[in-house]
């Protein structure tokens, strides 16, 4: 817990058997400070969201609650991956929450509506909007565009896409005791103290670049006029026929994203599925037709370096203001690179930077972080947010 008498952040984590008990325990810890303003819940997608929602509702009494399912989550006690994590914000934070549904059919409108519902902004120096979205929903970048059209350059945006677990189960969102899908939930945190955000991924391009010669939104049909799936399989020397086994392909593709050129840098695009019928690739974010595309690669060191750099940069940007907490939005797609002890090492790196600060976050299926520019949706990326 961090509490200077004005603002506080507490992280509750419980791995007690049964999601009801775990949620109640974690929430009770998170609510430990005076004047609680907001609870944010992360739990495995396989847990019953209804049980968690009801259980927390019994404890909170009038405190706004948002949350989402995760493919692994982080709490102050370590990287638990099991149990329920609840983050409490209280004291001198000014908070508002909102949600929007029917995301898939109208991503931009939902993004704008949710952002608009967080207005008017109170007379505070800094504002932060935390958005959690549903993995089943559609064009995340378009949702972020909609949110930006309302929030503008003054309000940073962070968050992530709900995870669907290591063993697939539908992702979900929590909003004020309700369980939502195909939706966005959001909270605005306003205070007079600074907020530091950093976004890093640690991927680099490999081999010759190609052009996305046919693509529609997230689906890439051809690269350099050849079927994208065939190019992807050949370049990665994939096992024969793997594209016909969705689970095997997903595991294979997890550590093998695409990269697209963005202002001399690269943005990473997670490959979610293969479509053997059209020989195309389905990515987690848009790959515009005409875009320069590379295969992306990384290793454990680069990945951990990105974690290091993001934590350091986020905390450094607070200047002399002591941090209250470190919020992390990590990607499930980075986990294969971190396997074999890497996850633990990543946690250690975070802990080294944060010291005794509360740390909370989750591994999701896409990260939201709009700090500069307008590109706010990322894949296979690490987002650190230090609250002053």
């Amino acid at each position: 817990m961090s509490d200077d008498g004005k603002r506080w952040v507490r992280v509750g984590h419980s791995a007690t058997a049964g999601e009801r008990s775990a949620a109640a325990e974690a929430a009770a810890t998170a609510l430990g400070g005076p004047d609680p303003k907001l609870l944010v819940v992360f739990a495995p997608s396989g847990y019953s969201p209804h049980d968690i929602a009801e259980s927390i509702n019994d404890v909170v009494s009038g405190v706004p609650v948002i949350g989402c399912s995760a493919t692994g989550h982080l709490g102050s006690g370590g990287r638990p991956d099991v149990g329920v994590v609840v983050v409490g914000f209280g004291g001198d934070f000014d908070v508002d929450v909102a949600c929007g549904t029917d995301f898939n059919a109208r991503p931009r409108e939902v993004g704008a509506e949710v952002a608009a519902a967080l207005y008017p902004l109170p007379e505070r120096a800094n504002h932060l909007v935390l958005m959690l979205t549903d993995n089943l929903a559609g064009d995340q970048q378009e949702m972020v565009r909609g949110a930006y059209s309302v929030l503008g350059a003054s309000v940073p945006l962070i968050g992530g896409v709900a995870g669907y677990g290591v063993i697939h189960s539908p992702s979900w969102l929590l909003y004020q005791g309700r369980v939502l899908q195909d939706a966005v939930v959001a909270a605005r945190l306003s205070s007079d103290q600074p907020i530091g955000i950093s976004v890093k991924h640690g991927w680099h391009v490999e081999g010759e670049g190609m052009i996305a010669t046919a693509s529609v939104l997230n689906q890439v049909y051809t690269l350099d006029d050849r079927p994208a799936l065939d190019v992807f399989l050949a370049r990665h020397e994939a096992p024969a026929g793997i594209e016909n086994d969705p689970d095997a392909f997903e595991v294979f593709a997890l550590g093998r994203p695409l990269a697209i050129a963005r202002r001399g840098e690269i943005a990473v695009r997670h490959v979610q599925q293969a479509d053997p019928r059209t020989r195309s690739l389905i990515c987690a974010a848009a790959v515009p037709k005409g875009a320069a595309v590379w295969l992306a690669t990384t290793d454990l060191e680069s990945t951990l370096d990105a974690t290091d750099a993001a934590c350091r940069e986020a905390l450094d940007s607070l200047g002399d203001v002591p941090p209250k907490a470190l919020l992390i939005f990590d990607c499930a797609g980075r986990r294969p690179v971190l396997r074999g002890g890497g996850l633990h090492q990543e946690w250690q790196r975070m802990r080294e930077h944060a010291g005794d600060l509360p740390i909370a976050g989750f591994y999701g299926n896409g990260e939201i972080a709009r700090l500069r520019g307008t590109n706010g949706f990322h894949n296979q990326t690490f987002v650190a947010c230090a609250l002053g």
Partner: protein
Amino acid sequence: MTLMLNARADQSWGTSQLVEFLAVLSGQSDEAAASRSAVERVLESLDAEIGMLLEPDLTPMVVVGTNRDDKRLCPLIRAALAGESATEIEGLGECRTTTVALGVGVNSQRLLVARLGTEDFLPQELLLLRGMAWVLDLARRQLQVLTALNERQRVLEHLARVQRGIVARVPLPEVFDTVTESALSLVGSELAVLHLLDRDGLAVVSVSGRATEIRPPAWALRMSADVAEEVYQRDELMSTGGMSGIRRADHVGDDGVARIAMGAPVRENGAIVGSLVVVSPGDGHAFAEAQQQALRTFADQVSVALSDAKAQLAAQHAVRDPVTGLPNRVLFLDQLESALGTGRTVHVIFLDLDRFKHVNDTLGHAVGDDLLRKVGRRLRETLRGGEVLARFGGDEYAVLLENSTDANARRCAERLLSALQSPYLVGTDQIVVGGSIGVASGGQGMPASDLLRNADTAMYQAKRSGGARIIAFEERMRAVAAHTGGIESELRWAVENEGLRVVFQPIVGLRDRRLYAAEALARWDHPTRGPVPPTEFIRVAEEAGLITQLGRQVLYTACSQAAAWSEVVEEGPGPSVSVNVSARQLRDPGFLTDVRRVLADTRLDPAQLILEVTESTMVSDLDAVLELMLRLREIGVRLAIDDFGTGYSSLSYLRMFPVEILKIDRSFVEGIAAPWQGSAFVQAIVRLAHALSMTTVAEGVETEDQVNALLDAGCDVGQGYLLARPMASADIVTYAVAPATRGPGLPGSSRFRAAVSELRR
């Protein structure tokens, strides 16, 4: 934050972004969406936060990254326009700004970009921004064209409906209802009312409304009546915005919603008799120019209907030419029909004055009319009882001879011609005019119009033969056009008698100058005027409905010549031939059959035929054209988009149509060697075309600098005077076989020589 890309990636970033940008904008539904999307994509590409599209007066049209009423916008705009790259934004800190005009001149809109932080815009970022501004300007103009096309199409559909009613002489109230319904739909109003003058003043004769109530509310009718009265008094289009007499309170309906109204005058034979009024929700805003134009058009339709109804009555009595007092065409045809119905042989003598136009042009219409009267009198005096003389307007006269023989008709014609040729004294001028006469005969069962046309055709033949002569109609003349005289008739004759020739302009590889294809171009060498510019005669052919026939001839000639080339070229397929297809040809239901037949007759490999279609043709009737193109592709014919960039240039259409070749309009090629604009855009087009597996052909290549710039942009094929001028078919063979020589010498094989000789014949 991320690893830098290798050099190739960095270089390709700008071009890649332009291609993406173009693709995104072309998918937008309208100008507003394209503008908004453009500003967002610009910010994403430059990693900037605040973007604006500014009107020429610097009013922000689109603002992204903050609110339109943000007080920080003004200093930001001021700083950007002053060229102060670094500036401080309250609450956001230091930032860098830049701005670029969308078009040329002080009246162009501007894109403004602000990036937070201290990082200056790099030269390649500024270059990219200019390219994006240019692409946005282009995309918006294309969307305007499409919107205008769609709007025009809608107007035409409604007008056609009204006109059908007028032509079919449906009762006037029905025509009025059609007009108010159309006006309601096109102007986007909730009420349309037609007011016409009766004995008691302006009365409502037709009302159409969107409201579900059967009767429109009284306040709306009152508002409409006020506007109608104002229009009637002032005799001009009026809207509530420009009317001082209507109080503001009158602009608000009983439902509390503000309304605006506009009325256009309705006339009968030129005099104002009423007004067509529309009422729309709105407050204070004027109607758009397009809405005003639509309302005027429909008011004019009412005027036509009213005048037509009057004229219909009058026409029953108006069967005489007002200048000469002779029967006019209507009466003549009536009498001709009666004569043909008797079963006896009927002759028609068709007479056209020679040099009358010269008299009219030099001495004026009054002298011309006087001459026409004198000619009429003299001709009438030449005829015998029972022979009917008529004047058809212009300088045409006709004589009807009942129960006559060819010899009698000939003698009558000779008398007429002789009488005609004596000098006339008009005022103080002595005028000599000649005449060209055609004679035709017919009997029972022949339509009067056919007999008249035959006589007309014979007369045209007499005129073509130098005038001052009499020619009797023969069946073979049916092919000779003798319709209205002038270039149209001559072109018709030329087309129908295959009097045009086809030349071929090589389309060549820019690197090796090898022949890729040859475009077939029609040429018309007029016997007296000399070569007529293609733009002129193609336009006339379009207007005269000759373009389909002309196109068919060019297609046949092109295919037969290309088939001959194939026989000469010893290795591989022969050169392809490219043929332009007009909009009318595409609409011709027999076009596909024509192409099939020509390919079968000429035995040309379909893959050697390229049909060129312009963009505007493609979008004018999307479904039908797409269907036709797919059929053409099925039989193996290749398709090209001509003049790409001058029409809608829609990428979504490009994806949809089975097009293989994209011809970049000469206007882009002209500027390609200029510092940035031409090459950046051509590069984007070429990359996109390659992405769609299309070949790009640059049109109008005239300098080596352009060739080099095109090659750099990735365009390998071109056409233009630098590369090769249009040439005869035989010379194409020379070009194909010996591209490097370019000279007149022919390659050596005897088979080749023989073939070329054959082609030259």
